[in-house]
């Protein structure tokens, strides 16, 4: 399993944002995407995850193996931590292993309603979803926002020792250092030229 991206161009709000992106990520590897605010990290990850169409280029990886995670984690405030995770496990036809609660330090919070968690605790719950659904290709948009130093390390460990170790792939946009030993891709050189082709308005120019 590999993630192959070639000559990709992506657009947001009808305007091209990035162009000419090509990279491969092999099984068991992670790629850290970097770049200043507004360069197009979120747009890239959404496109890779199939939530919006690319305007050019190809994205290639086995179907139905991708998961996307952003600031909004689909957490229901009125459900408990366990119920939230059980739901996503159910949707993906997976088990809800106890190890997940340990890996994301949620053991003490199991029966708390998700609405009463602090920002960082909520984030941990959102990330725990990734450990439950068993998808191989993860697209993570600033996964460690609001996490304290200890939790960041914990997440990096899970990613390295569990996800990548079993042959998974991860593409991670982040502004802080995760302490992962992964190649970095700076998006700045791929910024679309102001007159780049492919915007939804192209026919009108």
């Amino acid at each position: 399993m590999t993630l192959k991206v070639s000559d990709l161009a992506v657009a947001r709000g009808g305007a091209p944002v990035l162009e000419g992106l090509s990279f491969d990520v092999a099984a068991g590897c992670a790629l850290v995407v970097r770049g200043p605010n507004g360069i197009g990290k979120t747009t890239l990850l959404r496109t890779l995850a199939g939530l919006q169409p690319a305007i050019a280029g190809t994205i290639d990886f086995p179907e139905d193996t991708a998961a996307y995670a952003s600031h909004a984690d689909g957490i229901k405030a009125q459900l408990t931590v366990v119920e939230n995770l059980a739901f996503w496990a159910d949707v993906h036809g997976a088990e809800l292993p106890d190890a997940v609660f340990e890996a994301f330090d949620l053991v003490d919070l199991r029966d708390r309603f998700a609405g009463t968690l602090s920002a960082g605790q909520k984030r941990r719950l959102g990330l725990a979803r990734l450990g439950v659904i068993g998808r191989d290709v993860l697209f993570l948009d600033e996964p460690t926002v609001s996490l304290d130093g200890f939790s960041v390390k914990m997440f990096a460990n899970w990613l390295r020792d569990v996800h990548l170790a079993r042959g998974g792939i991860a593409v991670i946009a982040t502004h802080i250092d995760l302490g992962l030993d992964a190649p970095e891709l700076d998006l700045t050189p791929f910024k679309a030229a102001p007159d780049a082709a492919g915007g939804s308005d192209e026919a009108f120019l």
Partner: protein
Amino acid sequence: MIALLKRDLALAVRAGGGFGLGLAFFLIVIVLVPLGVGPEAALLTLIAPGMLWVAALLAALLSLDRIFALDFEDGSLPLLATSPLPLEGVALMKGVAHWATTGLPLTLAAPALGFLLNLSSTAYVWLFVSLAIGTPALSMIGTFGAALTVGLRRGGLLMSLLVLPLYVPTLIFGAEAVRRGADGLSTTTPLLMLAGITLGSFALLPFAASAALRVNLR
């Protein structure tokens, strides 16, 4: 897909969920009508079948924006879209869950409320039957409307505008069935039409709704 239905029902009965509120709204509209129109029993009997159906429709309408907006705001919707569930199935289950939390209690309670409007005695059974057949269509059509407007902040009112004209045939046949029941006429045709609308909605609208969702998630 059953997981989704189970979750939606669980959420509806939790604090702040919508269960019972559609019913309460139905009750309140039924109470307001005599207050606005005046208390004459004969007049109320005349308008009862129509007003009960209009109230049911408004109650269904008012809870439509819960269908997708909550899942959109907390980011569940893109996650569901990238999950193994087909989006058509998601739309269908959302419609079913809406009916179970709104249409079903409303159908069960309507005969009990009919007497507030002095509904004629022969009409009660037809009120029940027509609501049982017709409210699923209201939920499914509403799900489509909710899918169309899900990206918009507070699309709720716009959604009403889009959905209400789509509700017209259901309303007409539903109210007509009750009125005919009240007059002792045959109710077969309107009930058949209602059934047709419901079946058609459930067969086709999940596809339209999932198409709209896909566009809105883009």
